């Protein structure tokens, strides 16, 4: 079972779509030549999906090791966290990992929206 096939109950779906308190935000950046590193933060998996969305002229910036722990502990989605760990380990580069995580999170958020009907 992986993050895509893991069953999603209503409570998990609610946690995935909920916005965390400010204190539990996760820092993300974006490397945008020539502006440099843009800073921001995310507070839900929905925001993570938008932050990771592939873009031809810039790269998402985040700490992949900490991301899995944040998803597991703060968001409360162990299946997605395990998926992030797996694809990070299997990826040949940071960018490849970001793309794989994006697809995983995108599917996870879509599943949560189907469950909650939002």
């Amino acid at each position, binding site marked *: 079972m992986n993050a895509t096939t893991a069953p999603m109950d209503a409570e998990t779906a609610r946690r995935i779509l909920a916005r965390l*308190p400010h204190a539990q935000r996760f820092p993300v950046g974006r490397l945008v030549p020539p502006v440099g*590193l843009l800073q921001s933060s995310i507070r839900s998996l929905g925001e993570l999906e938008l932050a990771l969305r592939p873009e031809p002229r810039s790269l998402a910036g985040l*700490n*992949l090791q900490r991301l899995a722990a944040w998803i597991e502990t703060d968001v409360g989605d162990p299946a997605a966290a395990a998926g992030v760990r797996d694809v990070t380990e299997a990826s040949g580069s940071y960018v490849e990992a970001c793309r794989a995580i994006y697809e995983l999170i995108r599917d996870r958020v879509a599943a949560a929206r189907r469950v909650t009907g939002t």
Partner: protein
Amino acid sequence: MTLYGYAGKILHLDLTNRRVAEVGTEKYRSWGGGHGLGAALFWDFCRDKTITDGRHPANVCIIATSPLNGTPVPSGGGRCEVLGVGVGMYPISWFTRSGFGGRFSTMLKHAGWDAIVIEGKASSPVWVDIRNEQVEIRDASGLWGQDTWATQLAIRESMGAPNGVENGWWDLNASAAEALDPARDQGRTTQKPAILTIGPAGENQTAAGSLLHDAGNGAGQGGFGAVWGSKNLKAISVIGTGEIPVADAKALLRARHVTQQKYVTPITQPDFAAWSKIGNVPSPLFMNPPPTDQRRPQACQGCIAGCRARFAVGYGNESTCQETAWYLPAVRRVAKSAKELAEINLRAADVVQKYGHNSFLFQTGLHWLEHLHEEGILGPGKAIHSELPWEEYGTLEFAEKLIHALSHRQDIGADLADGWVQAAYKWGREEDLRTGHMQFSYWGMPEHGYDPRAELEWGYGSILGDRDCNEHCFNIIFTNVTAAFAFAKPMRLEAQELVGIIAGKLSPYAKDRPEVLDFGDANMYSEDVAQLVRWHRHYTRFYKQSALFCDLRWPDFYNTNTPDQRGATASDDAGEHVFWNAVTGDGITFEEGIERGRRIWNLDNAIWTLQGRHRDMVHFAPYIYETPFEKGELFPFYMWPCRDEDGLWRYTDLMGRTLDKQKFEEFKTTFYRLEGWDVESGWPTRTLLAGLGLAEVADALEKAGRLGKEGP
């Protein structure tokens, strides 16, 4: 004698007495153009150089062009420089600069003017109508209160339709006889007037007030919109039909042709991963993908880059770079799709442009405001009272309400109007400058996207100057190398090769001294780095801010389009000085251009000294010394070429360090010594100034008791 590259006249606007006068450019010829020309004009026209708030009636604002404006110099013909004492900086608003692109500078020269000196204060709102030599100061009471776009449309409308509507051209000739004079280029143009204006943020004299031209060409940093607002100056409109004499047109076109053939990515075989600046594939510069691919590029006059765009959807037009992302982190809080994210984001760009509000303050400032709100410090009935609907944060409606309040000094805008760091102190939040919750690193301005603790030339150059330097000369080293690491791709240039190529172009102080680029822990406070910072300060003051080569395309140090991977900068076939010489006939070397920059930089420092500058106030916000970015917080690594313990060059991760305050003080001493400044005060000495032909500046400093002591 022909002043090649120049219109030959400077327009002096005395707003107090509503008088217009003409000043000859020839006297200022040695200053080049842009910043150099503007600083020299400021020195001559500003009677009180001790003022520290740009809204003071004595302030003089300069709009200055370059000889290159209006010529086909690649990415060097469309910029315009703005100078004067700024607004909202901390602790002092310095004599500072800003710049913008578009059509204004070239149109001003076509109208016959190299610069505009704006002095005094009108008794009621005015706008200035320039049609070639004819200049009128007109009533702007009907324009006051309108946004920047509405103002431009209203001015165009008030000027009436162009003569000969069926032909669509303006006829600016005074008489039929004049129209037949072939030397006057018939006085006709199909162009629309170029208008520079302020919006509500400038009218209300807020530090965020910017100048705006067309839809999205803005001069944001420095608060020059507030300077104009304090002078009751709403807009300047210019339309011209003249020509710009060029010394050697053949040499100019030859150098442009060489640029295309040798340095620029071939359009038939584009290399999208080229390591270059002038040679990159032309592309718009958005921080976030726009909601549509139906767009066409838009560029400053004569530019080969086209970093802006106009969209079929009708919003986001001409915005580029930072303003296309100022609200992005907030929008993510509410957007349910990428399309929604893109639309709100670009519509928010339109909001700041229309209000004439500097979006750069939000680069780190928006995170600070969100932090204050989320921590329960900012909001209705909170310690920092705000009735803005913070629960709508991230929506377009909130963006409009926020910008409206800040532009009209309402709500928290009442405190932020005089500077964000000033507001932090007023609100008792100075601790935020220590913890890094408020990342305003130098002179009350937000940290750019380049960490001053990692990328030293940016941080040091900013604090040793007057503002966030915003000079992207070296940081493509970081972005190119870091991106290659992120993709796990082979390096196109290894570290030693890269620094060798760059150092070969750092004449005179750092030529063939690659160690100046070593930002490693062991070398970060060294004389090597001080020499690099000197080169950077002097290069940019002349080539970038006076000649007005575009920051996004120059300098071109390394270029993987060329066989030897050496870029156009300082080259004999298409270097900056080659273009300068072709236009002006000056015949200078690349190094003589750097020397001109040194002279301009030292005049700036003399003005800062008169304003009260002392080395004791030259330090970063506390978080730069006390709070490291946690490793990999915003990106996994910050790669830069450094030497290892064995002296071998390697790409090294510089993420996660702080600056040592004492060692930075020692670095300042080194820098001041190399510059010939008094190491105790940072003030220029008579020997230095006299050597630069600025003895009268030394006299003024001596009279003010602020002349530096001669060194040993």
